Each structure stands twice: as structure tokens, then as C-alpha cells.
């Protein structure tokens, strides 16, 4: 966190100054470790074992916050007897189809509840892509993302519970059994973490959780970049729920995201499968009209019950007067998804010639995405490519000076892609907001006009849309109606006709039938009388005031600091904060008081905005047949979940199991000690000659790639380097790509400090200067020593500070829930010296594949 988020880390330092114990779990000893009380080096890719063992420790040593777990989680809920755990199926859960490599989650449901898998509908899963399997378009729109805040409907009503949590099929007992093999001994064997060190962490975490104390988990998004990435976070969520650390001050799981507003770009999504506010994108084959869409996707209880209001208000914001009840509020104007259109399948579609055009805004896939060569091969097969960035990044110039030009794998004259480069304005050159990990919007004001031809993304998008609309103005083609009818009339200002960012914010906030800004999503109607561009942001422009621009200093308000920026929803700083009070509505402890029930006033009150219907008494129990928020009982803090409870067990919504299970990374030197299944059976694979996988451990050839590689960021640079490698003041601080190794590995492979090393996988080989450092600790795993190689991934061949891109090494292999790549744990070889040049480079990599006996099917086993 100190490495990737030094400014946010000041709050960790403050917590430390107040007596907090800081524990850092990371394969490497980083700047964060230097500040931590305890550093736990572990083998990259083994985190579920570490976290699972903490879960096991909490359950077996009775360290859970029992009153919290009984009241606020689904720990007491009984699961149907059709469910079979990994314990009994040697590493898979019931419902797995070996052929399609997908789970059917019907057997994971609550006992006694109706089957209703609304947001988790799926007809085709990821399975293996490529070569022989081109038809396998994965098709699970918005499942992972929508189920997060949306809370897939597990069929809550009628679910049976055992408040003593003794029933053998209640979630807590299933959990106990499932995690029983995640022991301290297993942690030592799989993660390489000594048992004594593990116990110290377990004791510190449990001693700092409960009524009086809370523990927070912070992670940078490297935690998610695994074939089991979502389940990493799930394991942390289970642990935090058992310890009562969700919805309370000082608790939670904080995702420290890679860019300043990645949270914002999920809320108002750049994701293919979501509409603003986590409403799923309609599917071409399933959602024929508004009614059938809402019926299929909404959840009957909790706040998702009002999805129709949110969606109709969104359609009204976009198409204004054209959206009427008679035409389903232009629901048919929305694009439809037909499959998995996420980043990597799109690259595959480019290589296959199915995707013809590509916009790249503020991203540098030629450096920052897994299997960087495939990114370039995809771009080389396009009709057109638009790159908007500060500088001529690698993704804009691969066609003339990319690595494949040097190796002879591509010739500029053969490439038909028309490449357009547009210089982009920086955040200092435009107005706008960032939404941070706390869901807080903070407005920033333009300081200077952008130089030269540089323009903001808002300018580009607005004026491109305006020109397209002008071109289509006379069109009578029905196909053009969605564009012609669009409300696209933002006021422009300044010398370059910059659209007003505040006008966009006002549209996102929404307005009522009289055009007044609405104050919150509770006001949204399903009849077209209200508009809102993103229902969860409703209120950010309440009273016509830009609430995100508020900057009342912390010293002039209480510790919740409600007047600094604005947090969605409803300026709530801690979501699910009903859980900070006990079932009777009293704070669990005075020390950790946040919101509470005021019986005299008959409403919830407290320091924060209560995340609960303000007039719903803790003693309210819904009558049978209640719907929406009225169906939540007074002890259901997780108001976006159908059952109002925190999910220790996910009865639906996940593509790879209701509980986390440890699987080894796709390319790993170690066998899975937990189960017979080596890898996540539901992972997404890409079969391509440019994307070969390594042999499974124990197979002939696996010894060719004996080391574990992990990639990461440095404080001095930003992601794929577009914002830092061109800046002299940053470039001089970390001037070139380097490879971090331990003195032991250096001795083993003859690597010299500041000399060159070449790192090789089945995909590619890269070179970097060697940094020999004690900070890379060899670990003892499964009775032998494993060396880990550290690769910062910022560099590429362009810019002021240059080097090879670490992502040349990574394979395309994805988590099946959110389609994220596995770049934080892979196997590789390292040798001293520089890599071969020209055609000798692909030949060198091919020789490694040959030595390892790698073929088409290697590593694609189930």
C-alpha cells in the first residue's frame, strides 16, 4: 500500500501512531513491510490457504463475534441437501459440468427457499477458448459485478435458519468442515509461512476484532489478478464477517484501486456488461422488453426491488422526451450483449478478425495487459485503432517500432490498421470528479487550459457524438434512432468548447418532473417522471449544489467528515452500517458507535447517515408477502442482499463455487496440496499458439520453469508508464526495468548485481538489470526451497525511461467471474545475460517450449 498508494498510506501511519498493529502479507518485502509491525512473506498465489486458515482458526478457537454472526450473516441458514462440498468431490463443488467447465448453482441454494437465480442467469460459460473452440462465447452478463452490490437473489424468503448454528447443513457448519483442512501446518507447507508467524497474525487479528475493536483489510488490486481472484476477496469477506468487521468503523475490506477513479469507472461503467449503477446490460437472447428484463434481473426484497425506477430514470436521462411508456422508455435503444465482450476475448476476436475497431483511452495494453504480444497481434489485425494518451505510448507505435517489428514477426508494410492518435488532457487541465475506494466523489477544478491539440476525454466524446449526430440528422433509418434521439446538449465553455462537466454531473444526479435536482434515489419513479444518469449517484447534485466539491476541513467537522466530498449512496461513509449496532439497535460498544436506533424519535440516528430505512425499528419483522425495503426485517443490515444478511456462503452469483477453495495458479511449480484438482476448474483458458501454458508440476518438462514470478508497481511509476516514464523527474527515480532476486537465487543462477538477466516463459522472454536484494526471501514450500522473482511491470520500449514489459511473460488465463488476468503468480526460468535479439528471440522462446514439451493442450487439463 505504501508502494502503490503512498498518499492513502498516511492514514495507516496515523492508525499506527494511535496504536494499531500493521501486518503486511506480501511475497516481497516492500516499503509497506518496512513500516509494518509484522511482515509475512508468502508464496505468490497461495493466499486462499493463508486466509482460509485464518477462517479455520477463528471457527475452531471460537474467536468469532457470535452475536454478530447469528444476527447479521447467513451463518445459521440451512443449505439444501443437494449441495456437495469440495471435501467430498476432491476439489469441486456440486453442479460442475466437466464438458462445459461451468457450474450450475442450483444445488447451492438455501433450504426451503424458492429457486430464483436472477442476476446469475447464465447459458454459456467460459471454458476453453480458441483454436478448436471458437463457438464458446462465454455469456454471463454482469454476473460478477452485478452480484456484488446487487446481491444475487438466492431465494431468501422462506429460507430455514438454525440460530444455534448446530444444524449440520447450516452455513457455519459447512464452513467449519470446508475450511478444516486449511490448517497452520498447511499454511507452512503451501504458503511457506512458518506456523509460529501464522499464529502471531491469527492472534493479532482476532485480538483486535469483536465488540470493542475492529480490523480492516486493505488490498491493492494485485490481490484480484489470479484465476481465483474473486475468491481471494471472498475469503477475506468471510473472515471479516465472522469477526464482525463489516459495517463498523475501522473495519471493512478496502480495495485500493489502480487509477484515481476506477471505482467511478465501475459505477458509471466502462465495463461491457453493466449499465450505470450496476444494472446489468440486457442480453440479446433473453431480454426482449423492459418488463421481461426487470422481471428477470430485479430482486424482490431490499432496494434492488426498485430496479425498474432506476432503469426507467436512466433511460429518461438518456433519451428524454423520446422515452415514453408506450415505447418501453426506449429500452430497445440499449445495446445488447451476446457473449463475453470483456478485454481479453475482444483481443481474441481481433486476432480472429471479428473485431474491427478499437478505442484505447488512457490505457496501454501493449505494456499493461497480460500477454502483451497478443495485444499487439490483435491491434495489427484491426481496420482502425484510436489511441488517446499524453504521449506516444507503445500501444500507439507498435506498428512501426514494436517488439514484433524487431523480431521480424510483423512488417509495417503488411499491417492494415489505420492508427489515430489523439493527445489527451491531464486531470489538471479539466474539471471533473474522482470516485475513490470509499465511493467518495471528490471534484477537481481545471487549473490550466490543455496545451496544443490535447483535449479532455469529455471533449472528445461529446464532440465525436455531436459530429456523428450531425451526420445522421437526416437519417430515416430506424437503426440510427438511438443516436438521433439521444439527449446530447451539454453546454460548452472556454476557448476549446469544453463541455461543462458540472452539467454532466447534474444529469447523473437526475431531476424531477419540474426539472429540479433530485435529492436521493428514493425519489426515483418508474413512470418516466424522473431522470437519473446513475441512481446510486442521485444526491450528488442535491439542491443544485455540486456536493462533490465540498471541502470542509477535517478540523472543522467530526471524524466522519460528511462535508468532505460526497459518497454514494446518500453520502453514507460506511455502507451496511446498521451492522455497527446490535440487533436491538444499540451500538455494539461505545468505542465503536456509529449509528443507533433512537426509540423516542422512532428513527435511526448517529454519526453517519444510516444505511437502513430510517424509520424501520430494530424489532420490525416483515409480514408475509412484503416486497422491496419493506421486506427487510429490523435486523437485516445488508440491505442490498435479498435476505439482508452478509453471505459467508454465496448461494448464487459466483462462477467458481459458493465458497473459496485453493487452486494453484495456472503456471505453478507446485502441486495442489489441498485437492486433486490442480487449478480452478472453471477458469477461462485461451488456446492459441501465442498463449501456451506450462506443464503441470510433476509432468515432464515442468522443471524447465522452476521459479515463481510476481509482478507489481513501484511508487515512482504509474501502471503501464504512460503517466510517468515520459516525465524526467519520475524517470530518474527509477530509471529502468529491473528484476529483483534474492542473493540465494543469484548464486544459484549466476546473476550479478546490476548485471543483466533474461526471464523466460512459454510466451516470451524479457531482459532486465538485476537487483540482488535480501528483500526477496526464498521460501520453503512442500519441503523444498522456492525462489520468487520480482518484476515491476511499468516499462516498455518507448518513453524516456525504457525497458522490456513484464507482461510479455504472462499468459491469458482468467478468473471466470470478472475475467481478470493472472499476472501476480506464474512460473518462469531466469538466466544471466541479455535476451537474444531479432528472429533469435522467438527461436529462443520456442526452444524453451520444446525443452518443456509444451503442446496445444498443455496446462489445459481440468
Amino acid at each position, binding site marked *: 500500500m505504501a508502494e502503490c498508494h503512498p498518499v492513502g498510506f498516511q492514514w495507516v501511519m496515523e492508525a499506527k501512531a494511535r*496504536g494499531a498493529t500493521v501486518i503486511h502479507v506480501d511475497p516481497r518485502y516492500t*516499503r509497506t513491510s518496512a513500516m509494518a509491525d509484522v511482515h509475512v512473506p508468502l508464496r505468490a498465489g497461495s493466499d486462499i490457504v493463508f486466509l482460509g486458515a485464518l477462517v479455520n482458526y477463528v471457527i475452531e478457537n471460537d474467536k468469532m463475534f457470535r452475536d454478530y454472526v447469528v444476527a447479521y450473516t447467513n451463518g445459521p441458514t440451512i443449505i439444501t441437501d443437494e449441495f456437495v462440498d469440495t471435501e467430498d468431490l476432491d476439489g469441486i463443488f456440486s453442479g460442475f459440468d466437466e464438458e462445459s467447465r461451468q457450474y450450475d448453482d442450483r444445488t447451492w441454494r438455501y433450504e426451503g427457499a424458492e429457486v430464483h437465480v436472477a442476476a446469475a442467469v447464465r447459458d454459456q460459460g467460459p471454458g476453453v477458448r480458441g483454436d478448436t473452440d471458437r463457438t464458446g462465447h462465454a455469456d454471463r452478463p454482469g454476473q460478477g459485478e452485478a452480484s456484488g452490490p446487487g446481491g444475487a437473489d438466492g431465494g431468501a424468503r422462506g429460507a430455514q435458519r438454525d440460530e444455534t448454528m448446530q444444524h449440520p447443513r447450516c452455513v457455519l457448519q459447512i464452513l467449519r468442515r470446508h475450511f478444516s483442512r486449511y490448517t497452520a501446518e498447511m499454511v507452512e507447507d503451501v504458503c511457506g509461512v512458518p506456523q509460529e508467524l501464522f499464529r502471531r497474525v491469527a492472534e493479532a487479528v482476532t485480538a483486535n476484532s469483536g465488540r470493542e475493536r475492529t480490523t480492516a483489510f486493505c488490498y491493492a488490486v494485485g490481490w484480484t489478478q489470479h484465476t481465483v481472484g474473486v475468491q481471494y476477496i471472498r475469503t477475506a469477506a468471510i473472515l471479516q464477517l465472522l469477526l464482525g468487521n463489516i459495517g463498523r468503523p475501522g473495519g471493512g475490506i478496502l480495495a485500493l484501486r489502480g487509477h484515481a477513479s476506477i471505482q467511478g469507472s465501475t459505477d458509471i461503467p466502462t465495463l461491457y456488461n453493466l449499465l450505470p449503477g450496476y444494472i446489468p446490460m440486457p442480453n440479446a437472447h433473453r431480454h426482449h422488453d423492459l418488463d421481461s428484463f426487470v422481471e428477470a434481473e430485479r430482486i424482490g426484497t431490499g432496494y434492488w426491488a426498485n430496479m425498474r425506477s432506476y432503469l426507467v430514470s436512466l433511460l429518461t436521462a438518456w433519451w428524454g422526451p423520446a422515452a415514453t411508456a408506450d415505447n418501453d422508455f426506449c429500452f430497445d435503444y440499449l445495446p445488447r450483449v451476446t457473449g463475453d465482450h470483456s478485454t481479453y476475448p475482444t483481443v481474441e476476436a481481433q486476432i480472429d478478425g471479428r473485431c474491427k475497431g478499437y478505442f484505447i483511452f488512457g490505457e496501454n495494453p501493449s505494456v499493461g495487459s497480460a500477454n502483451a504480444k497478443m495485444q499487439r497481434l490483435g491491434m495489427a489485425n484491426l481496420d482502425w485503432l484510436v489511441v488517446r494518451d499524453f504521449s506516444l505510448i507503445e500501444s500507439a507505435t507498435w506498428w512501426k517500432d514494436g517488439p514484433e517489428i524487431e523480431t521480424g514477426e510483423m512488417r509495417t508494410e503488411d499491417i492494415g490498421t489505420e492508427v489515430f492518435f489523439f493527445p489527451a488532457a491531464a486531470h489538471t487541465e479539466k474539471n471533473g470528479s474522482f470516485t475513490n475506494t470509499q465511493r467518495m466523489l471528490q471534484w477537481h477544478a481545471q487549473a490550466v487550459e490543455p496545451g496544443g491539440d490535447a483535449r479532455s476525454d469529455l471533449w472528445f466524446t461529446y464532440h465525436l457524438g455531436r459530429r456523428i449526430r450531425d451526420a445522421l440528422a437526416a437519417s430515416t433509418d430506424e437503426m440510427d434512432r438511438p443516436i438521433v434521439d439521444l439527449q446530447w446538449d451539454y453546454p460548452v465553455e472556454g476557448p476549446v468548447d469544453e463541455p461543462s462537466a458540472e452539467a454532466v454531473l447534474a444529469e447523473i444526479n437526475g431531476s424531477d418532473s419540474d426539472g429540479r435536482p433530485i435529492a436521493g434515489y428514493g425519489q426515483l419513479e418508474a413512470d418516466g417522471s424522473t431522470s437519473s444518469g446513475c441512481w446510486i449517484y442521485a444526491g450528488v447534485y442535491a439542491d443544485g449544489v455540486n456536493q462533490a466539491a465540498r471541502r470542509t476541513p477535517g478540523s472543522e467537522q467530526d471524524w466522519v467528515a460528511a462535508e468532505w466530498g460526497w459518497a454514494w449512496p446518500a453520502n453514507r461513509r460506511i455502507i451496511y452500517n446498521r451492522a455497527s449496532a446490535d440487533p436491538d439497535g444499540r451500538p455494539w460498544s461505545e468505542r465503536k458507535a456509529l449509528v443507533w436506533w433512537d426509540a423516542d424519535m422512532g428513527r435511526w440516528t448517529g454519526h453517519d447517515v444510516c444505511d437502513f430505512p430510517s424509520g424501520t425499528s430494530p424489532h420490525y419483522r416483515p409480514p408475509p408477502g412484503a416486497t422491496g425495503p419493506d421486506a427487510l426485517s429490523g435486523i437485516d443490515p445488508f440491505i442490498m442482499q435479498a435476505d439482508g444478511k452478509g453471505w459467508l456462503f454465496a448461494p448464487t452469483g459466483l462462477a467458481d463455487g459458493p465458497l473459496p477453495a485453493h487452486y494453484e495458479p495456472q503456471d505453478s511449480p507446485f502441486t495442489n496440496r489441498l485437492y486433486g484438482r490442480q487449478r480452478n476448474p472453471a477458469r477461462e483458458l485461451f488456446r492459441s499458439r501465442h498463449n501456451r501454458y506450462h506443464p503441470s508440476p510433476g509432468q515432464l518438462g515442468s522443471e524447465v520453469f*522452476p521459479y515463481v514470478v510476481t509482478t507489481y508497481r513501484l511508487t515512482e511509476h504509474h501502471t503501464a508508464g504512460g503517466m510517468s516514464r515520459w516525465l524526467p523527474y519520475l524517470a*530518474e527515480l527509477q530509471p529502468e526495468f529491473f528484476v529483483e532476486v534474492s542473493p540465494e537465487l543469484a*548464486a544459484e*543462477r549466476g546473476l*550479478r548485481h546490476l548485471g543483466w538477466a533474461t526471464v523466460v516463459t512459454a510466451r516470451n522472454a524479457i531482459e532486465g538489470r538485476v537487483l540482488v536484494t535480501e528483500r526477496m526471501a526464498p521460501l520453503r514450500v512442500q519441503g523444498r526451497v522456492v525462489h520468487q522473482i520480482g518484476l515491476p511491470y511499468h516499462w516498455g520500449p518507448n518513453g524516456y525511461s525504457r525497458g522490456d514489459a513484464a507482461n510479455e511473460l504472462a499468459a491469458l488465463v482468467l478468473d471466470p467471474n470478472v475475467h481478470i488476468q493472472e499476472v501476480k503468480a506464474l512460473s518462469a526460468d531466469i538466466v544471466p545475460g541479455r535476451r537474444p535479439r531479432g528472429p533469435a528471440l522467438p527461436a529462443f522462446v520456442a526452444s524453451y517450449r520444446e525443452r518443456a514439451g509444451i503442446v496445444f493442450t498443455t496446462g489445459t487439463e481440468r
Partner: protein
Amino acid sequence: MPADPMRQNSTRVDPVSMGRVRQNENPMDPAAASGYLDPPARVGFFTDTSICIGCKACEVACKEWNGVPEDGLQLTGMSYDNTGGLSADTWRHVAFIEQRVPIGANRPEALAAAPAGGTAAAGAGRGAGEAQQPAPVQGRQAVPAGAQGAAPVVAQPGLRWLMASDVCKHCTRAACLDVCPTGALFRTEFGTVVVQQDVCNGCGYCIPACPFGVIGQRSGDGRAWKCTLCYDRLTVGMEPACAKACPTQSIQFGVLDELRERADRRLADLHRAGVSDACLYGRDPADGVGGGGAFVLLLDEPEVYGLPPDPVVTTSDLAAMWRRVALAATALAAGGVVAFAGRRR
């Protein structure tokens, strides 16, 4: 411990009150000693390296504000320090020191008994590792890293990574200023030492005079450059750029007397928490340079950070030297007089 020690650190100097604080009673007040009538309180930096996270924001903020040029892309191999040291083109420098206390219980004993991971070519490089020691390795006893306040300290067996942001000390007795023949170097009303670039003639006398190696000559320019403690910002009531940018308030700017008190409290807290090696460097007005306007809390000996253990103002012996020179000259002159006088006789 105060309820909110970090916030307290953010105390900013009010330019109005600064002007009213009289320091003339203080014999160590360099501004008054330099002839300022009613100068503002002496200001400076207290850099608490125990909470430095090595982000180098201070280096970048300094260069941005002061227009200091980038000075080369060089991977030094000295941990994450690719800056090297203070110079004409580096006015803030963050040192990174990796101290060898093996991480985790796995090594070195446990590793000796275990087979190596790379079976394929494991033997290839064995014995070739002589030149592989990471640069600055110090054989120190493990000390809890960054122990804070009265926090319970969990002993950390293993590596320690020290990070420390260094800067011009703005000495109470500044040799650079003493030797400057043009008066380009001068003492400001804030007690800081600044080069006037339009006066500097590039003679370079100040460079060997500095006991810390802070000041340097800019290539292609010839003049001497160093930290100004953001004199331009001070004159309008702003704190220096580096302190403003520091996210953890490792770099604290303020009235020197207050910083010294704060540093004393912090040191006492650390000592109570068992960080017995913590020390203040440059805080003592009785040291060889009369104390620094910028001083630092270190977690190890100054030499570990590349700082002279006992800096002495290089002009401290000038008076005695000149006395001897004068004596010798007098003796020579007297001898001459005697010689001539004798001839007359």
C-alpha cells in the same frame, strides 16, 4: 501521547506571528547575529525518518517547485535510491538502506538443509555469487521497524529497510557562508542559508567548505546551487514544497524551537517503545556546526545514512589559523626589521 500527534505536526507557521516572535535573546539565533533587527522566528525542518515511507515525493516536489533539472537516468543498485546524494541538482535526497537481518525463520539455517528449487540448472551459477551483495548492507541488530509512539511493538526478526530524506542543514554556523567571497551566500531573516544566483560567480569555495557535501556546482552553469528552504515560499507564508508534499509528515516544517521540542518528545516515545538506537542528528546547538536548522531523527548511526558522525564547521579553525598566520607574519616582519636594523648598525 497526544490524542492526535500526526495532526499536531501539521502546525503551520503563520507569517504574521512569525514576524513578532523575538529571538534576539537567543545567542544561537543566526538571523539576529547576522544583523537582522527583529527577525521572525528561526524556522527549519524536523525529518522523522521513522515514518518515512520512501515515496520520494519530497524529491519531486522540490525539483518541480524550484525548477531543479533532472540529472540523469542511472540505476545505481543502491536499493531503491537512484538519486545518490545531494548536489547542485538534488536538494532533497531519500536514502534507502537495506540492513541484513535475514527475513523469516526460513533462512539462513533452514535453507542450508533444503534442496534448491531450480533443479534443472541449479548448479550452473553456484559459486558465482561473490559480487552479489546488495550495496548498503549493515550488520545491525534488528530493531522494530518504525515503532510508533507507545504502540505495542512486535519484534520483527528479519530485514530492516531504512529510508531517510536528507536536505541542507542550514547550519547555525555555516562554513559555506563564511567562505563565500562574493556574498552570494547569505543568511535570511528566517535563519536559513541561501545562494543568490545572480551574485554567485561560481568560484566553488563553498563546496569543500560544507561538512555534509550538500552544495554543488551545476554543470554547464558553473554556479553553486542548494536548498533554499523554499525562501520564496517562506516570504509569502507558505511551507516549503517538500514538507507540503510529504504524505506521512515525515518532513515537518516549523519554528525551530517547536520542532526541537516535538523531536525530543518523539525520541522519548521511541526509546520507551524499545527503539533504543533512535537518535536526533543535527538537533544539538552544541555540535560542531552549532546545530542545524534542519535536523533529523535517525534509527541508526549517522554513518549508516551516509552522514558525517561529528560534523564540524570547516571554518572553525580559521580564527586560530589566522592568529598563527598573523603571528608568523609578525615574526617575519619583526625579523626583517631586526635584520634591517642590524645592517644599519
